[in-house]
């Protein structure tokens, strides 16, 4: 018989480590629909009839954030066969708050007290059998990272699931509240008594979502609550929280023995004295970020000439491998006598198009690995803590810093990294503005224009100003989006600063691998489809295979060029550039090379690197102002399809992906327009 066991617990309690230990590689990371939250499911390694679902980390089951709503809806509506509540033994009081709330749902539960090694090294003692006695559910001590206790945990959990063993009702609330709960239950429509009682308690707490779900019972329920307020005081929410913590206090007194009372300075506190030190914090952070980027992108790693960093080395392997595969395929097609268009479709269309993406996947993997390591170690929370002051002015939080910073390298891992933001709104806004950061692929475009159109001393300033433009637009966008698109949602910064821990390499790697795999699959379809489509449009017209100048794409470019007239670049080659840029932004350089001068991209790149005037022919279409407008347009408009795929994967819905793209297109148009109009007035 198969069972579903859900894992629930606070963020940073080691839930993911446990999940990885239980499922190994037999896991799948998807998305909870419509929100930016990972859905992780797996099969228990030792028993393939047990499905494990890793619920998002939450501090309670009140509808504060998307994560909490998902966790509680899953437990209360889907009713898994059992819930394993992972509790961090080093901050057990706060963790038990969620435990009580899960117990209130009356779903069979097992408590796992994790980090027992740290508890012991502090000299504290947790009596799990006493806890079990009081709570009426199995309580198993574990050390998830080493696997200790996991076997016993799963045995207990499976037994509880099979027997459908529900814990006892805990003596948390006083008689008036219990009576009110029972009275309210009479009016509720749910079939099961446990559901009615749980809802009744939520209504007393003032839970917005449950309250809104009431229809004709509303008045009767409100009456009961009013009466309760007369004896308990108006603030029932605070009263209930208070009663819960009061019960937890008693529980902890009975079952937990602390070595020292009061605030004890931990190793983490000592580390923080340096890492969030007034003077050292920012320089240390800059060094850490530099190391991160160096490990991923550097071609002269550790300042050794020509030594590739891990990221570059892996990317090289993939590129070489892919090129070899491409060449072999080409030989095969030629010898098989395949027609020209098939050769072109397979080699230039499919292989080249996907090859471009495959080439940067290793970079994404390495970067994401390093970031996950930083996140799991606890350092990211400190970065957010330090940077928050700057970001809150734009309606974001300190956590947005890392994704936006990474956007300067590549949007794809940046978008994946935005998962770490605290709430759904922040994540969505950050994702929508991340592509405004000038990623690495956009630099060749700037270099090409700068080399051709801008006089020597202006070159650096022009390129630098485009980077700044992206930042400025991002900031203004964040403000606008906050005000208009998300006006009802609050964002605040109540955040735990977890203990510093060395993440297990295995855990980090599984997580990163799953992420990349998910991206490759989900985004892969968009990338593949769009690559083939654009290949077709740029190589064909009604007569068959032709050069790009006569292709459908050229016709389309001509047809739509009027759209760009107010922006100053109403030329079919400019429009075609924009479209090919959507496969990979650096393609614009190759497209221009071909369409303006019939030269191939390698010649172009050599010329640009040499700082020469790569493509003087573009002066027939662009001047300084319109070139700047064009660069701005390509910077801000929809990013490459790989990034759009990443947005789709992380947003969890097509609706939001389209909104993001629409927002970027409109922003690009308005900014380019302003540049053209104002630029023409000045120059």
């Amino acid at each position, binding site marked *: 018989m198969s069972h579903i066991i859900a894992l629930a617990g606070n963020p940073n309690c080691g839930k993911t480590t446990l999940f990885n230990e239980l499922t190994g590689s037999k896991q799948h990371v998807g998305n909870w629909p419509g929100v930016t939250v990972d859905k992780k499911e797996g099969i228990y390694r030792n028993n393939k009839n047990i499905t494990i679902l890793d619920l998002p980390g939450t*501090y309670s089951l009140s509808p504060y954030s998307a994560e909490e709503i998902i966790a509680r809806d899953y437990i209360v509506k889907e009713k898994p066969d059992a819930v394993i509540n992972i509790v961090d033994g080093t901050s057990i009081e706060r963790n038990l708050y969620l435990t009580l709330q899960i117990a209130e749902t009356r779903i069979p539960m097992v408590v796992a007290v994790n980090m027992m090694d740290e508890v012991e090294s502090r000299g504290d003692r947790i009596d799990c059998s006493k806890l079990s006695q009081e709570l009426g559910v199995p309580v198993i001590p574990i050390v998830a990272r080493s696997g200790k206790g996991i076997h016993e945990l799963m045995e207990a959990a499976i037994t509880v699931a099979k027997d459908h063993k529900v814990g006892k009702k805990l003596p948390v609330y006083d008689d008036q509240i219990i009576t009110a709960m029972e009275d309210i239950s009479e009016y509720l429509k749910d079939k099961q008594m446990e559901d009615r009682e749980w809802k009744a308690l939520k209504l007393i707490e003032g839970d917005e979502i449950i309250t809104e779900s009431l229809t004709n019972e509303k008045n009767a329920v409100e009456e009961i609550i009013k009466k309760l307020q007369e004896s308990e005081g108006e603030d029932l929410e605070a009263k209930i929280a208070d009663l819960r913590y009061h019960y937890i206090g008693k529980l902890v007194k009975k079952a937990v023995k602390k070595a020292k009372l009061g605030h004890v300075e931990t190793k983490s506190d000592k580390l923080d004295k340096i890492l969030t*030190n007034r003077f050292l914090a920012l320089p240390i952070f800059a060094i850490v970020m530099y190391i991160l980027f160096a490990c991923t992108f550097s071609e002269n790693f550790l300042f050794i000439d020509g030594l590739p960093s891990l990221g570059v080395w892996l990317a090289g392997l993939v590129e070489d491998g892919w090129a070899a595969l491409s060449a072999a395929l080409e030989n095969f097609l030629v010898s098989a006598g395949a027609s020209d268009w098939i050769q072109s479709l397979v080699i230039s269309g499919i292989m080249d198009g996907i090859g471009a993406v495959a080439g940067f996947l290793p970079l994404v993997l390495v970067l994401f690995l390093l970031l996950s390591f930083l996140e799991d170690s606890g350092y990211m929370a400190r970065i957010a803590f330090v940077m928050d*002051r700057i970001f809150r002015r734009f309606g974001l939080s300190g956590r947005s810093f890392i994704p936006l910073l990474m956007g300067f390298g590549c949007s794809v891992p940046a978008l994946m990294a935005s998962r770490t933001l605290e709430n759904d709104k922040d994540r969505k806004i950050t994702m929508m503005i991340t592509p405004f950061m000038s990623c690495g692929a956009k630099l060749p475009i700037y270099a090409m224009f700068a080399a051709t159109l801008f006089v020597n001393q202006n070159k650096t300033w022009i390129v630098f100003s485009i980077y700044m433009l992206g930042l400025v637009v991002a900031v203004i966008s964040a403000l606008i989006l906050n005000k208009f698109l998300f006006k009802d949602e609050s964002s*605040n910064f109540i955040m*735990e600063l977890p203990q510093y821990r060395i993440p297990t390499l295995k855990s980090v790697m599984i997580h990163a691998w799953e992420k990349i795999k998910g991206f490759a699959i989900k985004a892969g379809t968009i990338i593949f489809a769009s690559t083939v489509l654009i290949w077709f449009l740029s190589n064909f017209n009604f007569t068959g295979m032709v050069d790009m100048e006569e292709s459908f794409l050229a016709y389309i470019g001509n047809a739509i060029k009027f759209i760009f007239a107010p922006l100053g670049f109403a030329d079919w080659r400019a429009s075609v550039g924009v479209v090919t840029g959507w496969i990979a932004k650096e393609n614009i350089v190759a497209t221009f090379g071909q369409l303006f001068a019939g030269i191939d991209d390698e010649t172009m790149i050599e010329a640009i690197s040499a700082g020469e005037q790569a493509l003087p022919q573009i002066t027939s279409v662009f001047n300084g102002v319109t070139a700047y407008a064009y660069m701005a347009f390509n910077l801000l408009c929809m990013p490459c399809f790989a990034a759009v795929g990443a947005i789709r994967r992380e947003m969890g819905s097509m609706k939001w992906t389209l909104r993001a793209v629409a927002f970027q297109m409109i922003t690009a148009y308005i900014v380019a327009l302003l540049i053209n109009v104002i630029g023409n007035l000045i120059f």
Partner: protein
Amino acid sequence: MTLNDLKPGQEGKVISIREKGTLRRRIMDMGVTPGVSVKVIKVAPLGDPMEINVRGYELSLRKDEAKQIQVEMK
């Protein structure tokens, strides 16, 4: 006095939490409830947010949010 009036190293006892709505519930869910002891550890290098120790763990919150928490100094 409110939580943001406490300086690093100072301890206080929470009396009440003002702001209504989800922020308040969040603060209480995180263990900051009337009667609990809190200790201010430090303030971020740029002046905001602040870090406190409550119920055995470190919590960070903005000064705006700390203003909603009434405390008495120990």
